[in-house]
């Protein structure tokens, strides 16, 4: 079910062992066969294309809901009224609608003024990278991956769309090899990737170095619970065979609470250089795959798949 992962068959064993982002060879060997059908939305990657809709919703909703509507607006007449309570529960519908409507217009204006640079770690065939690049608020996107095959798929596919051609670059690189002095981004994404790497904490730390102050890192992975074992491994690999056998390793799944705690641990670390101190968990959301429908957000982040957003302080 999760396809964006590292592939080292062409890089060699030595390199693989030296990389934090290394993935086991068994997990990696399923990539080449996927490359040819990566962009067929009705093909074997359909479930990933559907998942991408939720990723984009999660990114959009998170950034939009954190926009400061009255930032820099000193004139009280110009300020948007933001009541300290839930207007939908308290006020008559018409008034609530007007308050929400005014907020929405301002939010939309602020959103459209953004010019975001994005880094997609583990970009695979470029499904998310292209979607990001198509947003008018995104300035440029870099996708990195360690598989030459899927990067080739991504490079070929972007040529088909003039809208993304100019904004999008791909590079065969591990995140820890990117220079943090030059490679700074407003949005860093690591979707369906952490559950495949051998040293997730190290990979995360490497990724944090590339987030600009005020910027975001978006992560998704899988809780280590019975439900996710049942859906992703038992059903996904053994019964329905949606993804090849060996795609997932149960032990590598990371619970939402563990990820949250990892960020908090950083806050308590006496090492001043620990980047985690600058990040907060800005939100997380569970999601579930329903056959015949697609992916759907759930309120329960501790079961199955989940998304998490970390925001770096301004």
């Amino acid at each position, binding site marked *: 079910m999760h396809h964006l992962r590292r592939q080292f068959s062409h890089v060699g064993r030595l390199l693989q062992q030296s990389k934090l982002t290394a993935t086991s060879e068994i997990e990696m060997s399923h990539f080449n066969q996927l490359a040819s059908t990566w962009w067929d*939305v*009705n093909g074997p990657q359909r479930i990933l*294309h*559907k998942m*991408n*809709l939720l990723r*984009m*919703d999660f990114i*959009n909703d998170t950034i939009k809901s954190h926009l400061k509507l009255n930032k820099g607006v000193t004139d009280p007449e110009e300020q948007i009224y933001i009541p300290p309570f839930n207007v939908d529960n308290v006020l008559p519908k018409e008034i609530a609608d007007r308050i929400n409507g005014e907020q929405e217009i301002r939010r*939309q204006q602020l959103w*459209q003024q953004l010019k975001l640079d994005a880094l997609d770690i583990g970009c695979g065939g470029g499904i998310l990278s*292209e*979607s*990001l*690049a*198509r*947003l*008018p608020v*995104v300035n440029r996107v870099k996708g990195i991956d360690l598989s030459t095959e899927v990067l080739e798929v991504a490079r070929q596919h972007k040529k*088909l*769309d*003039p809208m993304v051609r100019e904004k999008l670059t791909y590079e065969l690189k591990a995140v820890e090899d990117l220079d943090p002095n030059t490679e700074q981004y407003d949005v860093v994404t690591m979707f369906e990737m952490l559950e495949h790497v051998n040293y997730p904490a190290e990979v995360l730390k490497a990724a944090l170095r590339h987030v600009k102050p005020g910027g975001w890192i978006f992560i998704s992975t899988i809780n280590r619970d019975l439900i996710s074992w049942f859906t992703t491994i038992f059903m996904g690999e053994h019964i329905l065979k949606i993804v090849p056998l060996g795609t997932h390793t149960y032990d590598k799944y990371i619970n939402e609470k563990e990820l949250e705690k990892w960020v908090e641990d950083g806050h308590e670390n006496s090492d001043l250089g620990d980047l985690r101190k600058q990040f907060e968990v800005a939100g997380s959301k569970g999601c579930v795959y329903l056959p015949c429908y697609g992916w759907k957000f759930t309120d329960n982040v501790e079961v199955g798949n989940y998304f998490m957003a970390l925001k770096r302080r301004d």
Partner: protein
Amino acid sequence: MFQVIRRFATSVSNVADIVIIGGGPAGLTLGTALKNSPVTKHLKIHLVEGGKIIEPLNSFLETPPPNYLNRVVSLTPSTIGFLDSIGAWSHFNQERTQSYDDIVTYDGVSGARMNFEHPDIATMVETTNIQAGLLSRLNELNSQQEVKLVIQEDTKVTSIAKDSITQWPTLKLSNGDSLTCRLLVGCDGYNSPVRHFAGIESRGWSYNRWGVVATFKFADTEFRFPTGWQRFLPTGPLALLPLPNGYTSMVWSTTPELAEMLLSLDETEFLSMVNAGTRLSTEELSMIYDLAKSKSPDLLEQIQWRLNLFAGKLKPADEENFPLQVSEIVTGSRARFPLKLSHADTYVEDRVALVGDAAHTTHPLAGQGLNMGQEDVKSLVGALERATSRGLDIGNSLALEPYFSERWPQNHVLLGVMDKIHKIYSTDFAPLVAARSFGVDVLNSLGPIKDFMVGRISGNSKR
């Protein structure tokens, strides 16, 4: 003197996000809605129309024609709400629209009748008024935006092919231009060239009926609130729908031979024939049709005598059960068109979407055709907005599927209902007449069920 005249190829190749084929109400609404939306207004859109529309539509608003045009449609409150939400409704010439609260349907064979009442259940608008209002709104939007919607009028599509590399549709236009697009939308009517290009089958049948249309003025005998009238004759329904200032728009659905006859009458005979059609019994009508077909000189006299007889028998209290007589016809407003049902197998293919009549055509008996197209546009715009904010390629089937899965089942139900109503009423077979009349009488007295139907007709029941 030797002169080489060289003709430079003047063709220009353009790339657009969306190309809309057809400048009718569906195409113009789609273009306007997309340019009105904060999410999609940055898209590069071309609208290609075979006829000349810009000058005629502008002049319709600037110097409205004295008479009502004969292409008039009934808009549901839902449609008007949508047109209002995209800022277009206020651009319509409001004086030429007529809203009404009451629709009366009555059975030509048994006389069973049903009243549908709902505030502003429908609004009659000339299609040119719709197009003109939309174009005016579009001009306003274009003047406010960097990326303008381009209208290429008087331009036909000569061929559609797929680009060999990108697989995007590439159009050759009659002015020599070629146009490549991410998404091609067919708002190009029943014989949709876009549908043929996409290889989408459309299934259905002809009703073997024609709709005869004309615009009349009611006799100025008494004041009436504007009302929609529909009489179900075995040959098809005869509808008189209100226009402002006592005018009315007629659609008489009938057999090909009777349509032929109705078009061959002179205007005085035609007026009398319509008055007969709204009142006289089906037996009397059959006799009058025969007189008309044989060009009998007694036709006018016969109709008048029978109408007088009818008026004499009618109790004063029952007079308002029938529409007023028509007394004047707008010269040249008489026309006919064939009635058919069709439904495309799908509305979306890779890089193609169908909207309105290109996707479905229906019997006009409930005035739903154009409104279904407007609901299509609303749904498609919603799907494109969602796809755009998710960064999808809007030509991709992943972006378009929600439109199809939302609209196809709803349209299918409506098409089916229209079809059944047509079939139930196209007979004078006694048991069926009794059954339908009993059904109508019962239905008319059952408030909640009728309210539900009114809701469906006026488009208010959902969302």
